[in-house]
């Protein structure tokens, strides 16, 4: 049952390298999801660690510095807190960053994959919380790797532009988490060997239910 789906591994991998990275603002701020449609909050970047160099924890700063050193302006450090390092990256580079995190920084499993819907930005954010079992100095650390996929008003899950590269070949543990994000948000993970429904009923034909435009009745 699992072997039948393997041919979709290389559906579309091409356009990743052709676009110059500047097309999208790489320094994407965590846009505020408040409903008011003010001018695009591009002017308000996330509080960068450089902006307030006061009380950043040293160990976490060290980790984020290593990632910045390697990837430069392809990533944005969204926050550095105690035990947590937040990295925002666009979908062209998420695979490389995850590979670097596993191979060079000794992180080895993904704890949680959450989708967050931002309809006003026309984007869906997917947040990976990556931890480490094998390196005891990193036991309390988590890297919060966030990337964003295009969002369509009328989703056809799996057949529209809402796609991200899977991290399953890097972190095996994302398998069920990514399946859950696919059915709940309609984000198709290109290269995932088993993009089937997991929790929803088999005859579910509505919007992906955790999107913001899927409303609970009576609310």
């Amino acid at each position: 049952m699992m072997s039948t789906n393997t041919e979709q591994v290389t559906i579309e991998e091409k356009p990743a390298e052709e676009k110059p990275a500047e097309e999208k603002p790489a320094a994407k701020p965590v846009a505020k999801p408040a409903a008011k449609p003010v001018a695009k909050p591009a002017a308000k970047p996330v509080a960068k660690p450089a902006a307030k160099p006061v009380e950043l924890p040293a160990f976490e700063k060290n980790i984020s510095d290593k990632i910045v050193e390697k990837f430069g302006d392809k990533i944005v450090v969204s926050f550095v807190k105690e035990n947590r390092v937040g990295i925002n990256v666009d979908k062209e580079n998420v695979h490389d960053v995850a590979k670097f995190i596993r191979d060079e920084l000794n992180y080895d499993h993904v704890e949680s994959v959450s989708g967050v819907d931002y309809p006003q930005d026309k984007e869906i954010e997917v947040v990976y919380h990556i931890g480490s079992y094998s390196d005891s100095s990193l036991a309390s650390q988590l890297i919060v790797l966030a990337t964003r996929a295009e969002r369509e008003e009328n989703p056809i899950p799996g057949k529209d532009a809402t796609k991200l590269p899977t991290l399953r070949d890097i972190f095996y543990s994302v398998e069920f988490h990514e399946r859950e994000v696919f059915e709940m948000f309609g984000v198709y993970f290109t290269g995932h060997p088993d993009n089937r429904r997991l929790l929803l009923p088999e005859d579910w034909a509505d919007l992906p239910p955790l999107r913001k435009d899927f409303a609970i009745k009576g609310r």
Partner: protein
Amino acid sequence: MTNEFLPPGLALQKADERIMTLNVGPQHPGSGHMRIIVQIDGDYIVACDPDPGYVHRGEEKMAEYRNYITNIPHLERPVIHDSCNVLYPYVLGVEDLLGIEVPERAKYVRVICSELNRCIYTMYWLAIYGIFLGHSTMFMWPAGDRELLIDLMEKISGARVTHAHFVPGGVRNDLPPNFEEVCLRQVNYFEKRIREYAAVFYDNPILISRTQDTGVLSREDAIRLGVTGSVLRASGVDYDLRKKEPYDVYEELDVHSNVMKEGDSYARSKIPWLDMLESCNIIKQALEKMPKSGSVRVKLKPNPKGKGLNSVYKRVESGRGSLGCHIVSDGKVEPYRLKLSVGSFRNLIALPYLLKGEKLGNMPSVYWSLNYWPVEADR
């Protein structure tokens, strides 16, 4: 039509004469509220595909429509027997968003409640594990003995199962008068009682012959699959969040995490029992060190809200392993997005892996040794 989006079990498969597809569940009592699709060749399992979701209740969606306080009672529903622990990361996260410091006594009360709940949950699990291995004594004893601790929780919170006792800023009520003595007496008796389980269950040659060397998960694979809790520690990885990322007052207590190297069903079923003994130890330490008086709750404004766009990820060690709560707040009274990353869901990935090559008769022992709680996995 490709098989791409067909539900599991309906996908067309090239049938082999020898291979039979068998649906275990969702009504089968041995599978819990889920379906396990197994393909068997004679008596051996060649492939297994878990199909959860029969008790999916959309807790995460509901949380986006309720404010931070009214989220409390429904968020503990995924695991009613472990309701304090399943609420714990949410409460820690909200406190982080609001920037509240919790009184010292409240932290100790939380630790005591959380350890009591861990035992209550584990006893329930142990009862089910016992009956599915055909050991009816091991069903009756834990089901009876957990009443001791349920009574304690009832004294604390007023409810036997769903306590809703943790709130952002502390706990709902202070401990009843005279609680320390009653708790110490009951916990001592409970500890003595569960030590007797070794003779009747864990040292029982029938149990050992059924569970030893079945469903072996090596250390490397446990790390690769990202399993957690007792499954991880049974495979020789010493990872307990109470020690590795201590929350509340766990760093002031002496916590010992139990690790076994074998990685088989026997080790996975023994670790929760050892954890219960450790919980008794922690409760006794906490009772001793707890401040004898003082406030247990910070008063909050009626509709607390965070400041601007913010996100937080807190995790605790629950009865089934690490339990994380990712809250994204946009400065409103409701969470913008709330995600529970639960141990059961993370351990589910090990099931197809462990069952491959096992005999069908070993399926219950492997499945229940994963400490899997279907309602929690579905949320």
